[in-house]
């Protein structure tokens, strides 16, 4: 430690950055897919029930 704050810099760490972005993208895509699947299944049900 120096008077102006912590010294040094974290070197590397791109694997953590890539993991964070990939997991976020995967999570958003998975939720979108799940939502669209539920919407489609509801539409199929409505068509079966004879709704417009």
């Amino acid at each position: 430690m120096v008077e102006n704050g912590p010294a040094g810099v974290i070197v590397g760490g791109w694997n953590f950055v890539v993991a964070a972005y990939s997991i976020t993208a995967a999570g958003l895509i998975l939720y979108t897919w799940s939502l669209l699947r539920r919407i489609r299944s509801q539409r199929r049900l409505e068509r079966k029930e004879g709704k417009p």
Partner: protein
Amino acid sequence: MNPRLSRAIADHWMGWLAIVLLVIGSWIGLFVAPAERHMGDVQRIMYVHVPTAWIALLCFTCAFVAAIGSLWTGRERWDATLVAAAEAGVVLNTLLLIQGSLWGRATWGVWWDWDVRLTTSLILLLLFVGVLSLRSFAAGSERKANLTAVAAIVAYVDVPLVYFCVRWWRSLHQIQSSPATVDPAMILPLRLNAFGMLFAAAWFIVRRARLELARRRSSETALPERVRMIEVPRG
């Protein structure tokens, strides 16, 4: 233009806008913005972590407002919005904790710490998972809506704690930054991703709320038929 394509764009413009903003914002955050002085490239997680946190809290705030609206008016639109916003908030809060864990491992050297910010964020996630679970156990649409609304209001008490805890108590997590404390080159990707996440959450909430309303209409029309089916053998 193909009518199906134009309809898809009109129906999902918020989703498309979210994708464009998130792709541009992430690209700038990953490859254009400068590395931070002490954390180096690891700090680039901030461009996705902070917008996720902001919008997750916004989703829970939307759920809270909808809960009050639901109790006040009894309208099913408020209840559908509450469920949709709580669900979107749970998804974003889960992603937030994973991103934070990765960032923590790279900078603090641990995947998890029972720090006040991390703990209150985990409690918030568990509370809203509880709200959604409780809903699935309740019977009757009015009872279900009231129970969900009351539970969401109680769960929302944790939101101000999550936001202010880093100022109120000693925390390993840093306090909120402001445009005055952030390098101007870092603000653009942060804002682009924040708006991207906002449009994504808005698209999730609108679609999920419509689905909830459609499901309710289906169950309301299906119920009398089921009752008739049960009554036929008796007659």
